[in-house]
């Protein structure tokens, strides 16, 4: 079955949605999203340590999107905004879910899968060590944190990262990443 963006978006919108966005990921958008989610979190009943985790993981996942979004080729540009990405923050069954979606080049799929699988295989202490190692040894890149984002997210949430890659065409896959923050953590 061909990849269908509406279908993916609907699926990402399951549960009690705090915020859903589909379009260009820009610095202004990030500022606005953070503002909206922060005030929604203030109204939520969760304890403050959990709200902080949700906010902090949201910052990281949005900026990951921002730094890694690909410029789409012309034949996709008429269907999608430039710097196209999806973000949905929702709550279900005692979990906050931050779901992001973006196109990645087919050539990057294996690298990303390996990286996430590696992170998911590590214990909390191993993640802590990896975080410190990368922080101390990897050079800062103009792009962002130099590969710390996903490690930080996994370390803070204590939950496995869930992902799906769906083939869009020969050159691109749609990458959907789900991050969970437990209401009982913190």
């Amino acid at each position, binding site marked *: 079955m061909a990849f269908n963006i509406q279908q993916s978006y609907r699926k990402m919108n399951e549960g009690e949605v705090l915020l859903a966005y589909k379009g260009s990921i820009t610095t202004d958008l990030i500022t606005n999203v953070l503002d909206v989610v922060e005030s929604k979190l203030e109204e939520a009943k969760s304890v403050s340590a959990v709200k902080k985790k949700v906010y902090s993981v949201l910052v990281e996942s949005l900026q990951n999107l921002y730094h890694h979004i690909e410029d789409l080729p012309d034949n996709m540009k008429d269907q999608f905004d430039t710097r196209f990405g999806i973000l949905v923050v929702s709550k279900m069954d005692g979990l906050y879910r931050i779901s992001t979606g973006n196109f990645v080049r087919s050539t990057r799929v294996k690298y990303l899968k390996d990286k996430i699988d590696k992170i998911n295989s590590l214990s909390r202490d191993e993640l802590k060590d990896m975080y410190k190692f990368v*922080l101390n040894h990897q050079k800062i890149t103009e792009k962002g944190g*130099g590969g710390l984002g996903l490690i930080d997210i996994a370390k803070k949430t204590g939950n496995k990262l869930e992902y799906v890659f769906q083939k869009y065409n020969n050159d691109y896959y749609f990458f959907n990443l789900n991050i969970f923050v437990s209401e009982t953590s913190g």
Partner: protein
Amino acid sequence: MDPIIMEGTPKTPEIRFDAGKGIIEIRGRSIPENAIEFYKPMVDWLEKYSKNPAKETIVNFQLEYFNTSSSKCILDLFKKLETIHKESRSVIVNWYYEEDDEDMLEAGEDYESIIRIPFTMIEMEEQ
């Protein structure tokens, strides 16, 4: 040396680097998309300051949030402070964190273990 005084914004912290008083302060949120650009003046300032530091430098970090992009820049700042500390000048680091914010406490401990200047961890009650 001229001080650096900057107001905080929704994505960047309040900055106070004062050579005369030997005070280095960063407070608030540090979540800019491009942290390198934001922190460059502070890193350069500390580089200069480390050549002729005050007898005692008091460093106050009171961050509510920081992103991973900032975390590398903050380490850069601490590495400059480590140079001062190694030359037997007193450097006092106060790391503030809000009550129950274990992630922020842990972040402080991570830096402390990398740069080997003793930190004083200060828990603040939630407002």
